């Protein structure tokens, strides 16, 4: 479903250009609005659709296999922490879905490495990663392969 941009809504802000993983959203020099310059390199990931502050971008099904007349529209509300979908079938039938996208306020529940005591030589040379073993939810150390799980002759 390559993206397309509504002529009357786009203000050329460039959010879509920044976020597109495929580098296909560009600003047209004449119209000063965004456009998809390479529809057959669009994965239809909706990253630009979700990022557009003007709701100026949508997708229309890949013309070489999807019949016309349907739409899949999205509203990602960061503050609310939700994503809402409206699906319209070719026959007019509609479906709506809402789901959560996060359980925490953005930008707060991030790793606070500076709060940890500086690592010593021993920690650096052990196979344990940051927050391990606690983050593994095991009582002590890393899991190990018990003796009876080893192939005979390989070990023990």
């Amino acid at each position, binding site marked *: 479903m390559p993206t397309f941009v509504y002529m009357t809504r786009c203000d050329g802000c460039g959010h879509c250009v920044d*976020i*597109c*993983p*495929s580098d296909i959203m560009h600003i047209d020099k004449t119209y000063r609005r965004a456009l998809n*310059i390479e*529809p*057959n*390199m669009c*994965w*239809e*990931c909706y*990253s630009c659709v979700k990022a557009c502050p003007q709701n100026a971008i949508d*997708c229309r*099904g*890949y013309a070489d*296999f*999807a019949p*016309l*007349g*349907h739409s*899949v529209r*999205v509203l*990602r509300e960061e503050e609310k922490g939700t994503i809402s*979908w409206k*699906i*319209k*079938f*070719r026959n007019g039938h509609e479906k709506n*879905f809402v*789901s959560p*996208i*996060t*359980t*925490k306020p*953005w930008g707060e*529940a*991030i*790793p606070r*490495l*500076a709060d*940890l005591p*500086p*690592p010593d030589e021993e920690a*650096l040379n052990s*196979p344990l*990663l*940051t*927050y*391990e073993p606690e*983050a*593994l*939810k095991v009582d002590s150390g*890393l*899991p190990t*392969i018990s003796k*009876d*799980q080893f*192939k*005979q002759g*390989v070990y023990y």
Partner: protein
Amino acid sequence: MSHFGNPEIIEEEVDILIIGGGMAACGAATEIMRWTGDIGLKIKLVDKAAMARSGAVAMGLSAINTYMGENDPADYVRYVRGDLMGIIREDLVYDVGRHVDSSVHLFEEWGLPIWKQKGNEGKKLTEGGKPVRSGRWQIMINGESYKWIVAEAAKKSLGPANIQEHVFIVRLITDENDPKRVAGAVGFSVRENKIYVYKFKACLLAAGGAVNVYRPRSVGEGIGRAWYPVWNAGSTYAMAAECGAEMTLMENRFVPTRFKDGYGPVGAWFLLFKAKTMNAFGEDYQAKNYGILADNGYDAYAAGPKMGTCLRNHMMIKEMKDGRGPIFIDTPTAMANLAKNMTPEEIKHLEAEAWEDFLDMTIGQCGVWAGENIEPDKEMSEIMPSEPYLLGSHAGCAGLWVSGPGDIPGTPDHYHWGYNRMTTVKGLFTAGDGVGASGHKFSSGSHVEGRIAAKAMVQFVLDNKDWKPRMSRSTKELAEEVYRPVKTFLKYKDYTTAIDVNPRYITPKMYQLRLQKIMDEYVAGISTLYQTNAKMLEIAEKKLEMLREDGGKMRAKDLHELLRAWENYHRMITATAHMKHIQFREESRYPGYYYRTDFMNIDDENWKCFVNSTYNRDTGKWTIKKVPYVQLVKPDDSEPEGIKRPAAKV
């Protein structure tokens, strides 16, 4: 002033360069600051796109496919080797298994919504909250913002000054005095006329797998709807190969069977909703075709319904070959069965789950359904095996040969040379799709593997404190090479009246189509139903060599096309590796993914081993060899016979 024909050159020296901003790179970026924060090593992360939405998880995911929980990581090793037809690096897989839950727990800590079983709502995994499992290893999530959350943690750890987005790395450069050591990398901005040259002591190359190497089933706009994200162009494999790193199992590929055209995921449908498949006549072809596995010894890798994913494809392809397609997935019966004991409220919830599974990770499938008026509870859908992709973290295991952790008892010497996840090139590390012979890591395993590699890189850098990187190529030479497609365009564009048809150059798009045609027709693409033989490969070899030569004649009319040019160059090198490996392995190890019609059997006696290769960029020559497979984890009763057979003597 820099302009299109004359880019500005920016040089920077760091201790560690991270190439890529996907799951593995984000894991590395988060972890690395723990070990360098206090000693002040200089780190830089370079991504061709924006980290918040780059890589395979751009659109989100609906499941974390690798979570141990109550499972023993040794069983995880058994599962992975069963799926990948017996040959994996068990040390690497075990290493992922023993660490992976710590990444998943961090994701939850950072805000990723993880589904919990009834009565466990609101209880974190670390507090004993029971996840909703869609399979033994998979847990369900509301993952629309999965990548956003993981990238946020990485960005906050690293700090904005140490991140460079929208720069595509073209190649790695070896050390001036040691050709087996990496010292630098060169790339260019896709936004400004700038070339970036980095020098470093160590580098994590984690730029994902490869798509669009093969002609896709869709040929118009729908090319964009490949199953694998269209922006991962094999950069990991190509850059590592050109730097002299040893690759392993590059013959392996992934051919996912998915909902037709939209390539919507089937995992939840099979595992969670228990949907069944059938041929055009409503027959259960899996039951019917089970017997054909014995024809070529494939049954040695099936134990009842437990078998490698490729074997399931094999039984399906048989139906397609014999004209009994299309293959259907019976979604209405699955939904009806589940709904039997449900309240209307619960049924509504079930339906939402089915749609959200797609909306979280393959939105296009919803478009296909809506366009064709398909409601999955009322109408069946077709499923189809896709064109081949190369990757190392999903249900495939192509990639680089790396050192393992070394502390797992029984690890043979050839699995371990000091630093975890370091390739055979000194200072060059990889993770995620980059690590070969260790598939089924998925998003969480790739993240934790990035973390493992990050820590090992710090150790490497500390052990090489006084070493100064000196590159074997001059900056000027590199800049000229990177911008050659631009120069070619500017020099010849007025030679003809139409810029796209010009005997002096080839457009990146045509270059890609030429590659895809070769790979599709000669190297077991969809048009031969994944079949090839020595003669076809010989022809492919010749055509690929000419394609390599023409690589220097690609044009770039703007920065976007320069990006496409280098992506396609990376695809070409990756494709060549794939072809050479298939040519070398004289058996059909992965039936259903590809067939050597001149060697249709699985031949454990000669081929239960790795195939490893190295490439010499200066001579264009490939060196390929067998490497012994060593089994560490004892086979248990549930595993098929092939797993218990001895490895090939190499």
